């Protein structure tokens, strides 16, 4: 059975952390179509998290078409890894990989890459204003 985790210091709201984990696990193949997600009560007890938060995360997954509830049976994964990452994102991912290779060749480590992305994002925000 799939198990969630929670990072209390990440600053990402707990329900979003759950949604991200399902999406990521789909991409990595840890979750497949038809897999059952743990019950709300099990997640609440496992992570010591508000059950309403788990309900909210599952609703979001349903809204995104990644999971669906079957009455009396639980919540199941309804997407495959390719639906989890739509086509346009796959194109973006390919060009990102290319960029990351170039960054590595230029001698940038992980920290420098993250900093560069943050700065670029900041500049874009300023342009919008």
């Amino acid at each position, binding site marked *: 059975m799939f198990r969630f985790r929670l990072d209390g210091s990440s600053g990402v709201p707990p329900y979003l952390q759950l949604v991200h984990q399902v999406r990521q696990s789909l991409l990595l193949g840890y979750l497949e179509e038809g897999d059952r997600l743990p019950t709300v*009560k099990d997640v609440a007890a496992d992570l010591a998290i508000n059950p*309403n938060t788990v309900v909210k995360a599952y609703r979001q997954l349903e809204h995104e078409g990644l999971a669906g509830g079957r009455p009396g049976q639980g919540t199941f994964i309804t997407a495959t890894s390719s639906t989890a990452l739509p086509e346009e994102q796959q194109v973006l991912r390919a060009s990102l990989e290319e960029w990351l290779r170039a960054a590595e060749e230029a001698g940038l480590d992980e920290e420098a890459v993250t900093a560069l992305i943050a700065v670029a994002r900041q500049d874009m925000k300023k342009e919008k204003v």
Partner: protein
Amino acid sequence: MTQNDTGGNIPALRTDRLGRRYGRVWGLRNCTLEVPAGVIAGLVGPNGAGKTTLLEMIIGLLQPTEGQLSVFGETSHAPMAARLAQVGYVAQDHPLYRDFSVGDMFHLGRAMNPSWDQKLALARTDALDIPLKRKVKSLSGGQRAQVSLTMALAKRAPLLVLDEPVSSLDPVARLEFMREVMAAAAGTGLTVIIASHVVSELERFCDWLIVLTGGHVQLAGPADNLIAAHRLLTVPRATTDAELPGLPVHRTDSDRHSSVLVRADPGRRAVQERPGWQADPVGFEQLVMAYLQRPSKSAARDDTAQAAARPGPNTKAVTR
């Protein structure tokens, strides 16, 4: 299994200009709140803010000096038995009779509560590996807390009130205690009000938030809505408070810039008009800390807190 069949519209807790005076000092004043059924509400405030006064009025241990309070529609003037049946309570120090065995405590609970669920009590202690014959005084702190929680849950009351329930526990016992509370709330419609100083832990427990300081409500409502209703502005240090949109909730000055927590709507407008200003979303802990650090005098007159305290259209509890 639904513990409260009182219908969706009766809030678990409603207070109207509730106040309690101790001699000349007001422990709590002008407290108007609503907590819908089915939420887990975090009650935050510094020592002396009025948290325990509020909790003790909710559980019927204290009578209000002024104002109204009702729990699932039962007002503070209703017969005590009717009110007490609505609330389960776990106090900070988990008071139990030291010379009683766990089984004796359950016997007592059964004798005192008509709705006592002995099956639930036994199933919980069994799952937690707590022997019924063990005397309370020889239990660990974590086990004692779990027995207190079991006593409160076996009462089958629709509202569970926890006053700093984990402050005396080690990190593992804390986690185990809260796992039990969250599991008990899942799928049962149980409403929980939990007072805590540990703001960083509250985000995962609470979908409703109440901040009290100096005997006044500073902020109350659905946690998500409250977070969405605020922005953290970064502005040049020279910016005066008068130039800021609305009344700043909290301001931190650095050498060249200042971080100011403001309401989201005026904040967004200001950023559009003022190049160089930046508005970022605020996190749960940041929001709570900002309100905790605000001088309590501003609460009564400040319209920002009032607006935040008023339940918005989106305040209905998540139904399970």
